[in-house]
Structures are given as C-alpha cells and as structure tokens.
C-alpha cells in the first residue's frame, strides 16, 4: 500500500517546523524560502500545502528531458538534478504550483516524500501533517481537485 501525506489544516498552528525540516532535509540548512512544503496563512486558518504526487503528473509529462520520474517505492514524482536543465516548463505545467524554480541551482525543486520518511510529517508537532496509507486519506481533497483541472483523460481511464 502506497502512503501519502495527509494534511489537516485544522490542526496546523503555522509554526513552520515543517518548512524548516523540509529545507534542512533537502538543502542542508533552515530556509523556508526553499521548502517544498509551504504553509499558507489565512489568519484564522493555516494550510500546509505541497505536492500530492498526483496521478496525472503534469510536471513529469511536460518535462522535455525526462528529468522527473516516479519513485516506485513511494509513488513520488522525483526530480533528477543531473537531468534537469532548468527550463521551468514544469513550474507552469503543474496546476498546483508545487514545482518551483530554485534560482541558486538553476533547477527545480519539488516534494519527493523524502524517499519514504517525510521530514515535515516527523517535525510537525500537532499532527497536521501525517504520512499514512493512501486509502486512509480518502484520497485528499486536493486530488479531487486534480480532477477538475485535468485536461480530460481522468474520466476515460480512471
């Protein structure tokens, strides 16, 4: 059973531990600006937000050089730094805005589920982010949302 990140905004306190854990895991320092997970502040609601590793994988198919591939152990769509040329087409192709360009490296960054041990979920003090069996998440709202943005094929071979 694949696992996925289950996010419960009701529990989030906007402490940013997830963003720090993510940037530490991936960049080796504390830098929310480079975090793959982003927490949005709506004053009365805080929403952690990252890639859901959606089945459609717009980023992956838009990539001209096959730099994004599926990690079969986790289902994560993973960017290969060696292959990425920094063309940024995935950053506009992903309708969720969860692939972002990193000016310092000239490549893109996105959530890769930390190879199966997401640092954000481990760091979150409130349980707002949990890494659980995909079925459990009842297929997140965000994935339902994915259906709406889909260019159409979801209905055909779902």
């Amino acid at each position, binding site marked *: 059973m694949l696992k996925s990140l289950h996010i419960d905004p009701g529990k989030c*306190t*906007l*402490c*940013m*531990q997830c963003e*720090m*854990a993510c*940037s*530490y895991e991936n*960049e*080796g*320092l*504390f*830098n*929310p*600006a*480079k975090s793959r997970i982003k927490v949005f502040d709506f*004053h*009365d*609601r*805080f929403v952690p937000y990252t890639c859901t590793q959606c089945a459609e994988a717009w980023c992956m198919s838009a990539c001209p050089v096959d730099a994004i591939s599926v990690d079969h152990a986790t289902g994560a769509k993973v960017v290969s730094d060696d292959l990425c040329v920094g063309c940024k087409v995935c950053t506009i192709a992903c309708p969720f805005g969860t692939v972002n360009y990193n000016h310092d490296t000239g490549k893109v960054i996105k959530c890769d589920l930390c190879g199966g041990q997401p640092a954000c979920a481990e*760091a979150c*003090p*409130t349980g707002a982010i949990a890494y659980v069996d995909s079925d459990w998440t009842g297929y997140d709202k965000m994935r339902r949302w994915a259906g709406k943005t889909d260019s159409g094929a979801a209905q055909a071979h779902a």
Partner: protein
Amino acid sequence: MGWTRKVLRVNLSKGTCASEPLNMEWAQKYLGQRGLASRYLVEEVNPKVDPLSPDNKMFFATGPLTGTAASTGGRYSVITKGALTNAIACSNSGGYFGAELKMAGWDMVIVEGKAKKPVYLLIQDDKAEVRPADHLWGKSVWETDALLKSEHHEPQMRISAIGRAGESGVMYACIVNDLHRAAGRSGVGAVMGSKNLKALAVRGTQGVKVHDFPKFMQAVTAGKKVLAANAVTGQGLPAYGTQVLMNVINETGALPTRNHRDVQFEGAGRISAEAMREKRVTDGKANLVRNQACFGCTIACGRISQIDKTHFTVANNPKYWGAQGGLEYEAAWALGAATGVADLEALTYANYLCNEQGMDPITFGTTVGAAMELFEMGVLTTKETGGVELKFGSAEALTKLAEVTGMGEGFGKEIGLGSKRLTEKYGHPELSMSVKGQEFPAYDGRGIQGIGLAYATSNRGACHLRGYTIASEILGIPEKTDPLVSAGKAGLVKAFQDATAAVDSSGLCVFTTFAWTLDDIAPQIDGACEGGWTAARLLEMGERIWNMERRFNLDAGFTAKDDTLPKRLLKEAAKTGPAKGKVNDLGKMLPEYYKLRGWSPEGVPTNETVTRLAL
C-alpha cells in the same frame, strides 16, 4: 555559526546602509539578541542621551537560535534607551519577522540618527535601502503591512512597523510585526517614531546555518519532546494561552484591580481564557477562533480571536470583523481588571486597536486605570477627557480612549503620556502604578511577594518578564514557593533574572522555561554556536548582562531610590483574598538582593562583581 556574523548599520541622518562584521568577541560573551545588542548599546550610546533625540540608537537584534528549528527560535528584540522609562529598554517579540531578518543574513540592525522625512528600511537579503515613507506615514500598522507587501511584490515579506501611536509620540508606543506580535514595552515605538522610521520590511531567502547540525538537531528534538510532555507548554498554553492565569491569579488575590485599589476582580471570570472559549449568545461563536504559533514554536500559545459583530464597538465597522490577534493575559488584565471593565468583546476591540496603531496594552490599560481614579477623585473631569465619562468599569470609556490614543488625538494625547507623566501632571504621582516610569503588569506585589521585588529591580522598569517568579510562587516551577512569604525571594528573583537574561539572548521564547531549564537550552545553543556552551556559562552570562544593564541605568542617573514600588503596594494592605492585610515586604527583600548580587548597599555593582563577571 548560529550567527550570520553580519550587522547592518543604518544611518538615517545620512540615509546610508552599511554591512559590518559582528563583534565575535562580544558574541562569545553576550551570545546575541538582548545581551549582545545591549553590549553594543553600552558601547555606542551615551546613557544620558535623550531617548527621543537623534543620538539615541536602536538595535533590532536576533539571537543565534533565531531562524533555526529550535522550538520558539524566532525571537528578536529591540534594544534602545526607552522613551517611557529613560532606562535601558529591551522589548522582545515573536511572530516571523525575527527569523526573516536572520534568513536575510543579518544578526542585527543598528539604526542611528534621524531621517529628515519619514522613511522605511527595505531589506532584501544582502541588499538594504532607506526609502521614503511619506505614503506610509499616517497609516496604521495593518495598512502599512499590506501596502509594503503589495508595493514590493513580496507577499512573503515580513514587516515590523509603528502605527499612528508611534508617529504621534505616545510614550509607550510599541513596534508591531506580523500584524499582532509586538516589541511592546518601554516605548521603543516612540523612539522609532522620533527617528521618522516607519517600518522595517524584510525578505530573507538565504537560510540559517548552525555550527553542528547533527548535534543541534538532536538537542532540538529532545527539547521539543520536553515541551510536548509538560502540562503547561504541552497542554495549558496551547489550549488557553497565557490567559489560563486570569482565574488562577484572581483566586490568589493578586489580580490588581482598578488601579491596584483592589487585588481581586469580580469580573475576572468574564474576561478569562474560559470565557474566550465560551459560545456567545449573540452569534453562537466563541471569541477564540484558534491558537497560533510564532516561528518555530511548538507550544503555540498565541490567540486568534473574532469579535462579536453586533458588539457596540464594531457594529458598523466591518474592518474589525475578521480574525485578529486576540487577548493575552497581560493585555486582558490591563485593559480589563486594571480598568474594572469586564466586557470581553470591548477588551478584544481595544487590544485590536493597540495592535493596529502600535501601543503597549499594558501601559495603555493601566494608564486608563490611573486616569479613571483621577476622574473619580474629581481631578479629571469631562472637560479634560473630551466628554468621556471616565468611570471604572466603563467599556465605552476604555474603547473610546483606545481610539483617540491610537490616533494621537484629543485626550488621547494625555493618555499617551503614560501613567507616571499623567498623574504627575495632575498632581498625584502616587497614583501611577509604575517603577522607573513603566507600569506594572498583571500580578500584585502584595499577594505575590517575589514579583514585587522583581518589579522594583527590573532594569527596564516594572516588568514580569525580567524575572518571572510567578512560575515558582504560583505554578511551582521549578519548585513551589509561598507567594505570601518574602523570605528567600531575593535569591529566587536573582536566579530568574539571570536565567531569563540568558534565554532572552538566545533567540528563544522565555515561555519555554515553564518546561525547560538551562540544561535543556544549553545543548541547543551549543549545537548552534561554536565556543562550548554550558548551563553554567549561560547563567554567568545572564548575570553579566544583568549587571551591564544595571550600570547603564546607573550611568543614566538612576539610583537605589528608584528600586522601589508605589506607596500603594508598600502601605495600603490588600483588602480581600488570601493576601488580605498584606503589603509588599520590599524593605526586607531589597538589601538581601543587593548583597546576593554583589552590589553595594547603594545598589552599585562592587569592583569584585565587575571583575568576576569580566564586565
């Protein structure tokens, strides 16, 4: 590391910004934030300087743990000579601004001089620039926040600003960051206003490094576990916030009420944490929407509130209907008990206004309390107050004064003086519940003896956060002492003061110390900073900082005579509750305190002390 080792020096008179290396020798002696910036202040600012003159400087300082994954590691402090107190001022704030400043690559920003016209400071990573702020002058903190983000196309920008209060010389104006977190006390916002500096707008994308990541992460993870397991930091504060104290302190008989005439407030229950969670009859919603953390904080004591839309204060003003920073205990007490107002929604509204226009709700509320007493005595009349019936318990009076004071208009100008200057002006200085010009917070020195000594000796004027003996005297942390007994409190106060000075220099929040001792904190600092940091070293550093601040104040002209409490606490016994019949025993505690501190009977650090602490 832990430090970025860079200081931004901004000269407003010249409009220049320059980067300089952090003095690492001092960093090893004073760590960061409060201690380190105070060291700079002592070096660079004449203690006799007029706080509102261009010669005063401001230090916006982070600590080595600011911007790291350490729980609560997001604090910054503003150090300057305080407008309200004429003493050293150090106001500490959470939110996200401090971490952003660190992420931009700066340990500290030093602001010198005075701009000819309103300006703001823009910091985008390494780049810093003094820019005209004519379009922001006259705007509230909230408006400034939105305008700057929009103008710079940076929704992620963090802003620390003064509101109208700081512009118009409210002596206890504060500096508000992230809309409702404040470097609140001692009038640091008035100093900022006097420099024509409206705001600091920061975007930092460089990240923060620590000395030894694996070691640091291990210490940080252990620390978070301790916070989560502790009843206060793991449950009490997230659920109830600091407001959890309202009923507790009232029952202790130490909730100063109506300008300290009483020590218990009959309306306490109606303005307590419990009341904030209760559903209102009008709209079926609770005042409290949820809790919010500051940067990195795994406690999350912050309150987000929503006001009753039908309440008279906001009925026609949708601007205040949205979720905003709600009442913390000190604010609820000052706006409520100190004025005798038991209307939760009115307090919430007044608190919004304090955030919106940037003023310290503690001093504002207590000044209104003092003015109410003057009004009841007939010293103040509706002629002076601009028609306001300034009676204890009047929510209308409180909120009206919050409006005019925030805007710097009418009688608000007088309330903006603070209780000391106001009561002096009207010939009753004894009615100012303050030490060194700064008003008391929410604990009565008669019902809690140790806190009285802490107020009297606090280097920034009356303050609970300089030595929070409440932890021991009420909550039993680290061990329970009897609040009504003064014996042994001198040592307790000193221990709290020194430890707190260390915590305030690290980038951490002092609320962690409900659960953490310096033994929990030292390994985190040691992971972040080179130099070998132990609890003992931190404690000694805390003492060094305390003495350094003390010497600044002595050089500024303060003497042992200023280490005192208003007559009311020393002479008028508590009327009700467990402390009934008691006054504060300052006379007994103070000499012992001086001795423990290694100070002369005149309150001056002796040569041995100065040498021992390598000052």
